[in-house]
């Protein structure tokens, strides 16, 4: 396999320091909507200044660079083991260059591994596909947003939420309410309806790769995404939970086959710093974006 370690380091650098254009655009629009002089407007202004500074300096947008989650789509014949080894090497190097904070802590000893490598750390999802090129999608998911993510079982009694899209709507709104500003609002939601306890979160986080301004190809889900975005903003939690007009930047929903006994709604809450980056390798040429 060709040596892709440096390109993988560059992928990490981009994810950590260069906020995607659609997210930055949504933040600007949010800033323009807030009352001038309000704490909400001040927070968004600081956020936008920071995004600019981080990009210019190649420093992390947020100090919590999170757990790097790699979704690797590889052509037939490429080895996931070899890919994993190179990506791990790149993650350790990116940590050394201060693109990433050392974030892998042993729960038994409390010791930080120092280089972002550990049991199950970073996170990998490999899928062989029909294409002839390699695609690697990276999501940096921070701890604050992980802590306010949630998985509901329908029916959910406290909200009288049944096993239908109306039930989904209620529990997703509840998740946003529970999060308040603690996930660094205004956040982005990736939602998986169905699946199991484990794959629910994997698929919910996959939804976070969708561009904010895309439209769900399933009409009922597109309608629900728009309705949830509008209603979440009506909670008026605002940036950082200061109170304000923008509480979420987007809601992205996918459905996945489920067991008859189970109906999970998994909400992966992503902070405003929705740090995603993509790399493709075609005929030896590396392309980002």
């Amino acid at each position, binding site marked *: 396999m060709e040596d892709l370690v440096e390109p993988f380091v560059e992928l990490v650098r981009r994810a950590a320091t260069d906020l995607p254009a659609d997210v930055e655009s949504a933040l600007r629009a949010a800033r323009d909507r807030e009352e001038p002089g309000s704490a909400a407007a001040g927070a968004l202004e600081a956020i936008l200044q920071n995004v600019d500074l981080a990009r210019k*300096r190649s420093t992390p947008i947020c100090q919590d660079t999170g757990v790097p989650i790699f979704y690797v789509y590889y052509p037939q014949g490429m080895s996931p083991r070899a890919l994993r080894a190179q990506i791990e090497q790149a993650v350790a190097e990116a940590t050394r260059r201060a693109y990433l904070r050392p974030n892998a802590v042993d729960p038994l000893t409390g010791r930080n591994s120092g280089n972002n490598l550990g049991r199950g750390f970073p996170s990998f999802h490999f899928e062989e596909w029909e294409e002839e090129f390699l695609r690697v999608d990276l999501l940096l998911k921070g701890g604050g947003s992980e802590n306010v993510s949630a998985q509901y079982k329908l029916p959910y009694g406290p909200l009288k939420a049944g096993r239908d899209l109306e039930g989904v709507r209620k529990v997703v709104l509840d998740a946003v309410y529970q999060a308040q500003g603690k996930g660094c609002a205004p956040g982005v939601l990736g939602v998986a309806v169905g699946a199991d306890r484990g794959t629910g979160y994997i698929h919910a986080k996959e939804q976070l790769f969708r561009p904010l301004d895309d439209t769900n190809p399933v009409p009922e889900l597109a309608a629900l995404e728009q309705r949830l975005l509008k209603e979440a903003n009506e*909670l008026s939690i605002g940036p950082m939970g200061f109170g304000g007009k923008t509480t979420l930047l987007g809601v992205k929903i996918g459905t996945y086959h489920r067991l008859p006994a189970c109906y999970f709604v998994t909400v992966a809450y992503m902070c405003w710093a929705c740090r995603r980056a993509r790399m493709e390798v075609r005929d030896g040429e590396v392309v980002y974006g």
Partner: protein
Amino acid sequence: MATYELRTPISEEAIRALHVGDTVYLSGLIVTGRDAAHKYMIENFIRADSVPEEEQALYGELKRLLNGGVIYHCGPVVRQREDGRWEFVAAGPTTSIREEPYEADVIAHFGLRGVIGKGGMGPRTLQACQEYGAVYFHAVGGAASLIADSVKEVVAVHKKDEFGVPEAFWVIRVEGFPVVVTMDTHGRSIHEQVEQSSKEALGQLVGLTGI
């Protein structure tokens, strides 16, 4: 809503003059401390019968820094220079609510005047703010590179090997670190207010009252 410039050590009078919504630019020495640091302070200093001998030097140092001082809930990204000195590369706040079981005791024990973090804290901390004269300063979550700019010098680091870089006590000198007061000495908390109003809004949106 007023704007203030404060330098550590901060007097009780200056802190009691603040109200939620005020903007403050903080300068002087502050100390980072999060999950491991709070557990350590509680176990070795605050709820201990006696301070273990090997922790006494750090105890003395923390008493000096935190009296009239400020704790910052932060796990920074740092870089070490060739001369061995450290610099802060990215330094936004972490979510403070995890320290709610401990913070009131830290405020009482050390004479802390301010806690910087994100997402606010709970009723025990709010009560300690009122009783002892301290406020919660909310920094902008994720404005890590911007905030790192206000860190002019890393003066010292304690417990880096035991706790790791994100959890260590970093003693830093800041100039013009921008924060918003969201919990004050008058029993007011923006977080309580927003939680209440968003709860009512949720009730309307899901067709339930009294949830």
